[in-house]
């Protein structure tokens, strides 16, 4: 069995020895701007779109020049009138051009392709800050900077179904590692959002003190998912997911990076099709390239299917970015070769402001209607002076 053994990083089965404190109930923290202060719990409001338009404006100042030839133009009109008419034309032309640009761009950025159709949006039976449709956070963990966002997809918004992705990130018990996890609850299963939420919490509580390997670690998480979702097993399909019938199941991708922000080895492991990408020297690398489609396009998932565990180590250091994501976002990255991926090489070369990060992930593109979750890590302390 291949083991994810790092220099000093050893995985230990069981969540009982984890970092103490966090409630078993999902707690969604939303802070409008990243910073060293503790995040505000529950009361923040996240907007999926930027606030007031940042569309540039054009101001044309017409300054009358020195009078020549008696101050009249060729039509015999005073030069200041002709200048005013010309200036007004320029203003109108500018407004026209900007108006055209506004219609073809989204939030001031060029669209990635055909835009989706407008849709009615239904809440999933209500709104609750512990199970939001949008979750956003950012800040520092030791010497590592984090951005995290999860957005309910258009399909779920249209059907009034909950966000079925989840993320979690925390320091290991010994403070040496940042453990990050992203899970994508399978839409074909009942209450998949619970499986995803439990999986990421259990994953980030794994204690890194022994060496049983990734397989045992995922088995431990699977056990947690199985116990926590036992009450949903055997239930008939209800309001959530008209086509859902199988017991709760979820993908899970875990990333572990050194918390000290220095050069080292990072490790990733995954069950299912939630991608991990590494930005290094301006190039994206897909850590787990697709291995062909399974029959019926069914991905492997916890808690029942531990057979297709994939793991990989990467060299990690300042300037690198590691992102874990659900396929609702990962597919748009095209393995690192898409227009979006190239755009993000620049905008994610350092941690973006939270609002920009949300906008980057909340792109509008026809047929991309799944939930989107991205958890991004940068080595180093970047959020030391945030307004």
């Amino acid at each position, binding site marked *: 069995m291949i083991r994810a053994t790092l220099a000093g990083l050893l995985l230990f089965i069981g969540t009982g020895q984890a970092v103490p404190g966090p409630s078993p109930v999902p707690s969604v923290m939303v802070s409008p701007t990243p910073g060293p202060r503790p995040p505000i719990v529950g009361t923040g409001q996240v907007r999926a779109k930027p606030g007031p338009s940042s569309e540039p404006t054009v101001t044309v100042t017409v300054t009358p020049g020195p009078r020549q030839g008696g101050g009249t133009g060729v039509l015999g009109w005073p030069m200041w009138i002709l200048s005013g008419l010309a200036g007004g034309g320029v203003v109108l032309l500018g407004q026209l051009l900007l108006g055209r640009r506004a219609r073809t761009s989204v939030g001031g950025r060029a669209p*990635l*392709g*055909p835009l*989706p*159709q407008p*849709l009615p949006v239904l809440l999933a039976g209500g709104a609750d800050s512990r199970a939001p449709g949008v979750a956003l956070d950012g800040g520092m963990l030791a010497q590592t900077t984090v951005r995290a966002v999860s957005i309910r997809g*258009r*399909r779920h918004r*249209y059907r009034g179904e909950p966000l079925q992705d989840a993320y979690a990130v925390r320091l290991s018990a010994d403070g040496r590692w940042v453990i990050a996890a992203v899970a994508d609850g399978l839409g074909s299963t009942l209450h998949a959002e619970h499986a995803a939420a439990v999986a990421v919490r259990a994953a980030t509580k794994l204690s890194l003190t022994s060496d049983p390997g990734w397989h045992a670690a995922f088995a431990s998480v699977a056990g947690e998912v199985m116990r926590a979702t036992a009450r949903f097993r055997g239930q008939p399909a209800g309001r959530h997911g008209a*086509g859902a019938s199988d017991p709760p199941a979820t993908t899970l991708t875990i990333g572990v990076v050194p918390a000290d922000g220095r050069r080292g080895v990072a490790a990733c492991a995954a069950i299912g099709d939630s991608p991990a990408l590494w930005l290094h020297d301006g190039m994206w690398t*897909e850590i787990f*390239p*697709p291995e062909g*489609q399974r*029959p*019926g*396009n069914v991905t492997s998932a916890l808690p029942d299917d531990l057979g297709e565990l994939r793991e990989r180590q990467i060299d990690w250091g300042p300037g690198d970015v590691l992102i874990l994501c659900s396929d609702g976002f990962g*597919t*748009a*990255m*095209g*393995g*690192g*070769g*898409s*227009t*979006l*991926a190239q755009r993000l090489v620049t905008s994610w070369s350092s941690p973006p402001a939270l609002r920009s990060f949300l906008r980057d992930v909340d792109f509008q*593109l*026809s*047929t*991309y*209607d799944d939930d989107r979750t991205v958890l991004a890590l940068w080595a180093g302390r970047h959020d030391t002076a945030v307004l």
Partner: protein
Amino acid sequence: MRSANGRPRAFPFYIVCDVSHSMHTAREDGRPTPFEVLSNCVGELLFELEAGDPGVSEAAHVAVVSFSDKVELVLPLTRPCDAIRVPALRPGRQTDYLAVFRELVKIIEKDNRKLSKQFDVRAPVVFFITDGEPYVGEHHQDVKIWGPARDRLAGLEPAPYIVALGFGTVREETLRRVATSLRGEVLAFAGEIATGAATVLHGIAQAVSDSISASVNRNTAVLRGPGGMRQLR
């Protein structure tokens, strides 16, 4: 690298309708002819896709082709959400398989070139609906004549799935020769003799709609068999 390239997905579906003489011969009992039923079904199918799941309406691209002695592209490949009006089918005379397969090759190749510039194009699906054996002039059209054209269609890249949906006098071996297979199953379905044409055609329309929705939602070709029809082996 993922095949998607980060582009929107496009699932092309071609509904190919036989509009030859046998489809629109008036019935003695005054009930609608298969042609009339099929005409209504195609319109309803597109309306259902447009009004249904928006994800399906955006990702599915649907074309309608009619054939008899002539081939007509009734509705060029269009997303249901963009389909404003579906032109009516026009009745024809004979049943020329060679002409329709030749034309489908041209249509699908052209559509693929166009779609590929903007979309991540998935394998096309051709729903081939017919009620009779190929017949041109005074003779049955032999498979030696139309078979190679069908093979060129099936050999396009990406390779289309051809679902043969037959009723009336069409022979099972003809349907098998037209169809391709998916995961080891031949995509050929025959209407039971006891089932009326109208019932079969409504079943076909429902199966086409279900297949389109399921393929988009599961991100891979999922083809449902129509109720009232038997899958051939």
